[in-house]
Structures are given as C-alpha cells and as structure tokens.
C-alpha cells in the first residue's frame, strides 16, 4: 500500500514537472512572436490590419478537430472535411500540412484538450474545431497558446485576437429548399425532423426559413415538426420521419445528421430535402434537393488571411453571397417551375439584399416579430429565435 502511494506521489510530481516544463517552453516563443509583431507594426511597412503575424505558406500547419469520422457518409463531419480538402486544394498545401483528429467526443473535455495539444505539439498554428462542444476548451487553450490561432465552428465565444468563431446563414439555403418543397407537396403537409426544440435558435431559424420559403409559393401548406432531442440519433430520426409520413406529410425535410429521414421518405414513396451534403446518393428516389454547406469558402478565406497577415480575429458569419451555403442541384423529382422560382429567390438573396427574416413576421401563436422596413439582426437570428412562423405546427 505504502509502495503504491509513493509511486503515485512520484508520478504526480513527474507529471507536474513535465507540465511546468511545457508551459515554459511554450511561453517563450509566444513572447518572441509578440515582439516580432510589435517591431513589424512599429516599422509600419505592410498589413497593419492583421492582429496576428503572417505565416509563410510553407510554415502553415492546419489542425482539424472532428467530432466523428469524415469518412462517414453524408453528415456534418464529412461536409467539414470536404471543406478542408477544398481549402487545401485552393491554397496548395501539402498533405503533411493538415493534421486531423477524428472521433473527438465533444462532451469529453479531456479528450478535446488532448487532441488540441497533440495538434500543437505537431506544429499546428491554425486549429479548426468543428463542433459546438469544443468551444470552452478552445477558449482556455487560446489563452495558453497566444501564437496559435483557434477558429471554432457554431459557437458564440471569441477573444478577437487568436480565437474566433465561424458559422453561416444556412437559413438562406433552407428558404430555397422550402420553395422546392412547397411546390412539390400534394397533401400540403411538409414534415421537418428537427434535432432540437423551439429553444434552439439555429434549428428554429432553419425551420422558420424553410416554412417561409414554402409559404412564399404555397400559402396553404403547413410544416409539421418532430423533435428528436439529439444531434445524432439514427433510430430516433427514422422514427420521427416515419411519424411525419404517418401524419400525411409528403415532403420530409431535416435538420439532423443521418440520411435516415430521406431513406424513410424513399421507402414510403414520398419526397424529402436532405441536409449537410447532397443526400440524393442515399435516397435517389426521394431527395428533391439538399441544404448544403461549402465550408471550403471559409477555410480558404481564413488560412489565406493568415498567410497574408490580415487575420483579424473577427467572427465569421457568411451567407449565400459568399458561396458558403446553397442547395444542391435540383433533382428531376422537383415540380415544374421549381428551378425558376428558386433562381429568382436566390437572386433576391444575393443581389437585392433579401435576408429571409425581413419586415413584420407573423408567428404561430398569433404575435408578430420584426418591424416594417427592417430585418432581424444577426444576434436575434443566432441567439433568440424561439418562435415559429405562422404555418409551422408542432404535432
């Protein structure tokens, strides 16, 4: 027993020594980095806009923290990794300049921290963390490693210097998908499998945009919502989609990870709208279109700004005009005239400043949101959208 205790004490001491050692070694280059930056800015030669020193293209090393495995079919991580690959191609980075950490459980703080520290030890100077749960660890480590840039997807925290967050106006794409669904439906009942309930702004905003798109072409249709209460629940997503079909819905849209709602739609002979990537490969006989991210737009922009020394540390909230979000090419299953209607709406969004949540919006409990001639602020869209549009029905 005594032996075991002393062993424990010794190992604890060794660990703490190592920890101290690594702290010192990391702080030193940080200080030098700061001083070099200071000298650069005092010289006032180039790029005064950036808050971080420029890094030459050959010295860039990108770390990516994925919540699951990118090889996984259609979902969230797959789409993010396509974005990383696109960035690599656009900028011309070598394979050895990308470090991926897959299957990092986003509710396990130790696993997240280890993954990020490993990236830094391997020499990464930009780290993209793609899942919500990575946020707090990024915040803490951004303080510890001021020379490393942390960019976190979907969250809300940032420090304006080496830690920002990025997301996109996916609701713009959902509005277009709503148009395709509204034109297709025969029963005037659209189904929507939602990962989270009304209290989640991201999901609720997506439902509203979809419902408003459908309403714009078909004022008689209603959107039925079923909530799985999980970001990844294959069985629940199937069951929710089946329940929507049982209620008479003939287009199943989704805000969840697996293509299961689409395969359910296919098996029941109805249609669907996929999410994340083009799900027509999973359910070719059902998918009208899919709401898609093109993360390479952001990743290219971010890495390029670091190379140019223009990294500003500001948060990123791109939209359809940037090419970050859009819908997949319409399939042959779409109703006639869909392409024209979608193109017109896309043009409004990109060229005419239409932002979906414009003007006075009626909610499904009879109240109204917004004001004539105004549009909802980004803070309202991302943070406090807890109402449903008037044709949304929670069944």
């Amino acid at each position, binding site marked *: 027993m005594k032996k075991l205790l002393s062993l424990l004490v010794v190992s604890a001491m060794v660990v703490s020594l190592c920890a101290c050692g690594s702290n010192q070694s990391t702080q030193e280059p940080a200080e030098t980095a700061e001083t070099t930056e200071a000298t650069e800015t005092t010289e006032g030669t180039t790029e005064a806009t950036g808050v971080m020193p420029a890094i030459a293209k050959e010295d860039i090393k990108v770390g990516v923290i994925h919540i699951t495995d990118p090889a996984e079919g259609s979902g969230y991580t797959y789409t993010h990794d396509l974005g990383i690959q696109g960035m690599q191609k656009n900028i011309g980075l070598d394979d050895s300049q990308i470090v991926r950490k897959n299957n990092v459980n986003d509710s396990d703080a130790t696993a997240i921290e280890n993954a990020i520290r490993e990236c830094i030890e391997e020499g990464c100077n930009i780290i993209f963390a793609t899942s919500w749960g990575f946020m707090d660890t990024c915040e803490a480590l951004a303080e510890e490693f001021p020379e490393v840039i942390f960019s976190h997807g979907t969250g809300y925290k940032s420090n304006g210097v080496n830690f920002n967050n990025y997301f996109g106006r996916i609701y713009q794409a959902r509005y277009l998908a709503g148009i395709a669904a509204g034109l297709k439906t025969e029963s005037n009942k659209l189904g929507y499998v939602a990962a989270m309930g009304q209290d989640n702004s991201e999901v609720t905003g997506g439902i509203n945009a979809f419902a408003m798109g459908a309403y714009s072409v078909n004022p008689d249709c209603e959107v039925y919502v079923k909530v799985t209460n999980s970001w990844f629940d294959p069985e629940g997503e199937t069951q929710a989609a089946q*329940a929507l079909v*049982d209620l008479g819905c003939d287009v199943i849209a989704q805000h969840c990870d697996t293509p299961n709602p689409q395969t359910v739609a296919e098996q029941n002979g109805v249609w669907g709208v996929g999410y994340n990537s083009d799900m027509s490969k999973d359910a070719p006989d059902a998918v009208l279109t899919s709401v898609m991210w093109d993360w390479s737009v952001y990743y290219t922009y971010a890495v390029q700004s670091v190379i140019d020394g223009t990294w500003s540390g500001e948060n990123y909230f791109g939209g359809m005009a940037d090419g970050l979000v859009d819908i997949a090419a319409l399939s042959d299953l779409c109703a006639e005239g869909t392409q024209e209607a979608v193109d017109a709406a896309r043009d409004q969004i990109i060229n005419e400043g239409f932002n979906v949540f414009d003007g006075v919006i009626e909610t499904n409990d009879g109240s109204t949101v917004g004001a004539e001639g105004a549009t909802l602020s980004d803070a309202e869209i991302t943070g406090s959208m807890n109402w449903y549009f008037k044709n949304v029905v929670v069944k």
Partner: protein
Amino acid sequence: MEILIKFLVAAVGAGTPLLFGTVGEILTEKTGHLNLGVEGMMSIGACVGFMVGYYTDNFALAILASAAAGAFSALIYAVLTVTFMANQNVTGLTLTIFGIGFANFIGIFILNKTPEGTLKLPENITAAMRGISISGLSELPVVGELLFSYSPFVYIGIIIACISAWYLNHTKAGLNLKAVGENPGAADAAGIKVTSVKYRNIILGGAICGIGGVYCSMIINGGVWISNNVGGLGWIAVALVIFANWQPAYAILGSFVFGALRVLKYYIPQSVLPFPIAFYDMLPFLITALVLVISSMRKSGRINLPAALGLNYFREER
C-alpha cells in the same frame, strides 16, 4: 384511430431489435453466464450481415451471416468465461467495446472504397426487408395493418421467441440448461455435460443477438450504412431480460412495450399533452424502475433469476 394503428405498427418496429437481443440474452443468462456484450454482438451481426447483403444481394444469406457473426462473437465470450474462467462482467464489457469498434472499422474501411461515398443496400434486399404483403390478409382493415404488414424480421423474432419458450420449458435440453444455470455442480453430478450445455446456449444466444443487429443496420437505418448503428439498444435488451423475468414469452410483450415507449414522443400530439420531449426520453427507464420495484415487492411471484448467474463454475471446487 388511424394514427393509433400507425403508432402500434411503429411500436412493433421499434421493439423488434430489442426482442432479438432480449431472447438471445435470456438463453445466455440461463446458463448462468451474464453476457454484457449484447451491444457488441449486435454490432458485429449488424456489420457482417449488412456487408454480406451488400456484396451478395441475397437477403437470406445476409440474415444467416449475421447470425453466424453473432454466434462467433459469443464463442469468443464462451471460450474466455467458460473455459478460461475469466470475469464475466469484464469480458462482456470488452466484447461490447470490441464489437462496436470492429463494426465501425469495417464499415468505414469499406465505405472509403466506394466511389459514391455511401453504402446503400441493393434494391433486391431493400424490397425483401420491406413489409410483407399477403393477398387477402394484408388488405383487411385494421387487422391487416396490425398483423400482416411488418418486415419479415418481426415474424422471425416472434417465432424465435416462441420456440425459445418451448425449448426452455418443455424439452429435455431446455431443462438441462435451466439446471446448469441454477446449480452447475448438481447438474454435473446428475450427468449433464455442463461445459457443452454452456457453450451451445451461449453461442445460440449470440446468434439470435446477431440477427437483432442486422435489423438495426438494415431496417432502422433504411439500408444505408451508419457507424454506431445499434446505438445502445443492446443495453436496453440486457435490462429487458429482468423486465421479462427470464421468460422468452414475456420478452415479446416487454420489447413491444418498450418499443411503444420509444416512439411515443413522436405520436403523442404535442398540442394535447405539452410535456417536454425529455420527459418521453426518460419514460422507458422510469417504467423499468417501476417494474423492478413492483416485481421485487411481489412475494408470491417466482423470480426466474438463475441462481448461479455471474458465477463461473470451477469443477474442481465442487
């Protein structure tokens, strides 16, 4: 009314994988071996069955392969716990971790090789696993949909449960099995080959769990491969064994009740009962707790827990 029928149909669909897992685990536990590897055996069955279906385009072969894979993974468990007397809990947990990892690894390995980036079962199999249709019976109002509209798995599951009930209670082999689970020493003295009985039934139980696994990968996920596709159902099956009081016939009831509780949140109109969704997520486990309390309070009722459950049998220490 119509939505009630749809609800019951969905409940049966959600309960079927649990039925396979529960019946398989009952046979295993009746030997006195607690196999916590149900989740792992189902995962391996799900993976192997799916891949065989994907490559051979043959539904029957896919089911047989899943059963064989489940049996093989149970064999690993049997060798470790029966022959080498390893701790049953640890071995079972290890099997779960191994099984899930194995299935995900193979799945991603094959997925990476597909040009389309998706693993989708061929049309032949998707058609075979869809609901059956018996002319004359399936068209009947209400009854047709409630009894004759399911995928073949549902009927296979019920048949397996019924055969298992008969096997346990009315055959000599089944009585031997129960004797081994109650008191292996006495069974041994009575001339029953304890090791052989244990091996046979653990492997049989694994095979049944394997079929439950392929239900998850084929039906629940609509024939498209997804990692972690068993998603914890194996654990619920382990709990359902207690719920079913180690009787395969009760397992049918128990798994369908659990299936109903799992789909309830999608069928109860929120406008009528505006409970938070989390309440429905909790419900199956609340019911389990209640059943456990009630069944332990009931003095007259016989509890069928095998007396030697979890204890390895050292012949030399008889």
